[in-house]
């Protein structure tokens, strides 16, 4: 039995990826749950287009912000504030952005409490009036589906092909490397797109998730996001020797995105260090685009920043994937062009 134990220890020690997963994963989960797993809202950004009413004292939670726009709906649609307070006759109206679920709930609580204490304020939630969790989660889940198909399924498909020797066979056939690359990922692109449409239609039919914005804008965001996820899938496949390794690596890239992209826990509630990790993850930006377009009806310029950052990530990851794949398929050719 002792020999068996020694053998198993040696085997685990030799498998560095599994070892890394056994050590890194618990540490990562601890850090994530310690610093990121928080629904607490510490700040609510409030805009007063007509100025802060005289003599008003704001609770600590509310942070007045300057905005470039004056129309309350536009301020919220462009994400310049979480709440807009305007005058309505003798009283006030607090318009709350319902697409930021936890912030919105906290804001509703603050203003309802103020109203109960005699402050003449009426609360009105826009974009997600019932503050439905599903309305906020479904756009992000569509991104998760793209991530799953793009990264995990693609990497498995490419690794399977390499293990079977088909990839090498394709390399020596009269096909250009780009034919092989595009031909390899195009089906996954289509499958991911169909999956996303299914998620959105089911979300709309079963959970009444609104779709306030342009479907083409969301489609453009999805295409950009798919470039990143497919690129990540190909990258994973090029550093994996078998499907087991590909699954391990894919999970290691999926999990942080699920936890740190704002899909479940609001980015604003995370500790600064962990939040910055979230800013490096593509799902963070797709999430912002999907929620913005679907719930708030955000036009392109309102989500231009996440679009730009997603495009930069797409160029970097997809470009690297193309280079790695070429090197994998035809090493000497890649070297000669390098």
């Amino acid at each position: 039995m002792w020999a068996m134990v020694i053998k198993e220890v040696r085997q685990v020690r030799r498998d560095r990826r599994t070892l890394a997963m056994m050590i890194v994963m618990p540490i990562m989960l601890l850090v994530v749950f310690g610093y990121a797993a928080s629904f607490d809202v510490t700040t609510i950004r409030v805009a007063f287009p007509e100025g802060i009413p005289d003599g008003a004292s704001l609770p600590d939670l509310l942070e007045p912000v300057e905005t470039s726009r004056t129309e309350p709906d536009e301020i919220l649609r462009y994400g310049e504030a979480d709440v807009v307070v305007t005058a309505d006759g003798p009283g006030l109206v607090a318009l709350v952005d319902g697409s930021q679920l936890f912030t919105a709930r906290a804001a509703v609580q603050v203003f309802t409490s103020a109203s109960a204490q005699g402050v003449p304020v009426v609360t009105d939630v826009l974009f997600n009036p019932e503050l439905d969790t599903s309305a906020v989660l479904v756009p992000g889940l569509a991104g998760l589906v793209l991530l799953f198909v793009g990264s995990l399924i693609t990497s498995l498909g490419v690794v399977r092909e390499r293990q079977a020797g088909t990839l090498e066979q394709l390399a020596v056939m009269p096909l250009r490397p780009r034919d092989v690359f595009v031909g390899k990922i195009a089906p996954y692109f289509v499958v991911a797109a169909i999956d996303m449409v299914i998620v959105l239609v089911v979300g709309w039919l079963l959970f009444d998730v609104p779709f306030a914005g342009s479907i083409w804008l969301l489609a453009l965001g999805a295409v950009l996001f798919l470039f990143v996820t497919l690129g990540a899938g190909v990258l994973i496949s090029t550093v994996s020797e078998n499907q087991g390794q590909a699954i391990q690596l894919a999970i290691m890239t999926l999990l942080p995105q699920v936890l740190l992209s704002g899909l479940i826990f609001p980015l604003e509630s995370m500790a600064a260090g962990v939040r910055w990790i979230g800013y490096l993850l593509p799902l963070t930006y797709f999430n912002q685009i999907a929620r913005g377009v679907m719930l708030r009806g955000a036009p392109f310029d309102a989500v231009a920043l996440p679009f730009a950052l997603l495009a930069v990530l797409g160029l970097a990851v997809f470009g690297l994937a193309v280079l790695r794949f070429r090197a994998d398929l035809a090493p000497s050719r890649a070297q000669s062009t390098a």
Partner: protein
Amino acid sequence: MIEMHQVSKRFDTGLLAVSDLDLEVEASEIVAVIGPSGCGKSTVLRLIAGLDVPTTGSVSVAGHEVRGPDPSVGVVFQEPRLMPWLSVERNVSFGLARHEGDQSLVAEAIERVGLSAFAGALPKELSGGMASRTAIARALVTKPPVLLLDEPFSSLDAFTRVDLQEHLLEVWSWYRPTMFLVTHDIDEALVLADRVVVFGGRPGSIQTEVIVDLPRPRDRTDRSFHSFQDLAMGELRRSSGERFASRVS
């Protein structure tokens, strides 16, 4: 047609597979490489195919330095590596759709390997020999000037192997490509090749070469064939023995 000059290949693991190799193969020549397992035979083939990069030295085909896989070099691997959901015809024509007049080439390549009656069959409906013939037809469909064969018949039974060797010679007489064959089988090398290169040692290097100046088709029962067998076997034993001795020392 194929030139290798001072070629060495060291893998990422640090293993030096081939060292200071010089080799030339003439146009339309059939060269077979034999040698013990792990002596770097397949590495040499992969370097010519552009699937691996030499660490030092140069490899060129038809006067052009090899910079990756090229349509002018066809490769047949040990396993047929057919697409299971495609028929023989579709496997052979895979990747050719953008060229005109391919269908006649596909039909001719299939006919040359004697599979016309099975053009519509799926790989699961083929015997091992037929699958190997399909792989050969696929490599030949563009009539590449160079054909590399990496132990293409090693997983087949002796009878099928002999049958396919004859087929391969018929295919060669079709347009006389330059052939570079890696094999474990001395008989196969002597039946097919104009020249047999005996590989050995670690790192792998050429131990000797045997010019097989027998007329084709070669009779395996002929006395002169046997003398070549003895010669090649002696050289192979010598190279294996040296390798064993170097490992022990």
